[in-house]
């Protein structure tokens, strides 16, 4: 009988407690600083061009071979506005193949690529697999809009 009453008291106490549910699509929980979303390219706001020089380091290091980069001469360097003589031409990154291993970030000599630590690095549902192949414009958009800070290793 005491157990019966104790059970009722238990459920009553949980009833007045705050629910633990987070209504996910409308309410986003904060993500940790070192959250590992899909990789993104960073935009050099001082010069107005990507940090990436198209050096192929990430392409060679990528274990799933989901990155392909081309390099071209930097037109801004000819005008002496930029110190980068070479700059990225095309940059294709297949989010469908990427395993988020962070090796591309480790090998990048110019800190031009980073892991997306915002919710936009996760909410990537698409109807077509081809839509998951990101081009240079899409990879740079978030950094260009100053919506991501590059994460600094501790």
């Amino acid at each position: 009988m005491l157990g019966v009453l104790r059970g009722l008291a238990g459920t009553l106490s949980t009833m007045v407690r705050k629910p633990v549910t987070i209504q996910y699509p409308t309410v986003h929980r904060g993500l940790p600083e070192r959250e590992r979303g899909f990789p993104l390219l960073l935009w050099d706001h001082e010069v107005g061009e990507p940090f990436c020089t198209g050096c192929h380091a990430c392409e060679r290091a990528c274990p799933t071979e989901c990155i392909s980069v081309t390099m071209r001469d930097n037109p801004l360097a000819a005008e002496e506005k930029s110190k980068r003589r070479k700059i990225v031409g095309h940059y294709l990154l297949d989010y469908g193949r990427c395993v988020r291993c962070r090796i591309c970030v480790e090998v990048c000599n110019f800190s031009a690529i980073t892991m997306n630590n915002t919710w936009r690095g996760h909410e990537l549902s698409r109807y077509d697999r081809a839509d998951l192949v990101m081009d240079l414009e899409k990879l740079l958009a978030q950094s260009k809009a100053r919506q991501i800070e590059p994460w600094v290793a501790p």
Partner: protein
Amino acid sequence: MSQLGDFFDNVWVDAFWRLLVVLVLMVVVVLVLTYVERKVIGRIQMRLGPMRTGPYGILQPIADMIKVLLKEDLRPATADRVAFELAPFLAFVPAFLVLVAIPFTEGWGVRVLSLGLLYFIAVSGLPVLGYIVAGWGSDNKYALLGAMRSAAQLISYEVPFVLAVLALSMLAGSLNLVDIVERQGRVPFIVWQPLGFFIFLTCVISDLTRRPFDTAAAESELVGGPWIEFSGIRWSILYALTEYTSMFALTLLGSLIFLGGWDWPLGRDLGWWWQLILIFTKTASLILFIMWATATFPRVRVDQLMAFCWKLLLPLALVQIFLNGLILVYGWPDWTLLLTSGLALAVAGYVIYATLRVRGPVRTIALRSGA
């Protein structure tokens, strides 16, 4: 104007609009109860319950209704066609008919029957017929097992239920629900009959086949009661509509005969809307208690279920009748009713405690070394 009055005085018209009001009330109550139950149980489990459809998920029952109406109406190929299609109505119609005898306010009910309590008890036991027919008709051994269990359970628990209500009607000296409410006066019968109320509430929870007495619908053993093979609107009638209507009717009865109905504590001079508010508040509190119990208790075994009914509730109900008879015959004062009934309830509590108590040291499973 007098022509309109004559029109409404016609027996058939009168019966029709009263039934219509009760039918609409019942549908609304069922919709609200499905929502409230999900919300309450959600909160008890520290969830939110339905939140998406409308503000705070308030349109969820409407969405459920549309979904259930649009679902395919499946019937197993080997099912007994007549029995299968008839069963939902055999279960639902008695559950609704019960509401006919209930006086919602002092002067308003579909019909005030002089043997209202008897009618209530007789008709509220009938849905079990629908369950048996459903279990038999769907040609499924689990459905039949569920039907057998629910038949055994409902018939067993009907006995202490009737005896507890009978003990109460001894005090009221009437089977007319209006008389019983008016006889309670300043002190509702729950004060004089705590044991009777305990038995009544237990039997109500059992009649609704809710936890801890939901062996008939035990999902983990029987897949899901006599309504396994039903889908769509038939399932909805057989299960949801019947269960929530029965719940509403039984708690209404409880608030009428045990909690003072529309009379206590405000008196009956305040007008019908106050009476309605009173009776629905009492009913709602009983319903919330039942939901609370549903969310709390684990299911009992079948033998425990039967033992609890026949070995504890039935003797206690008989004791209650005996005590009431003794006190009424010798004309002892009212407080002896409370004393004896309370003492018997304490004895019941001790018996349950002693039965459930773990004797000796609590068994623990030894960890393997290194684990």
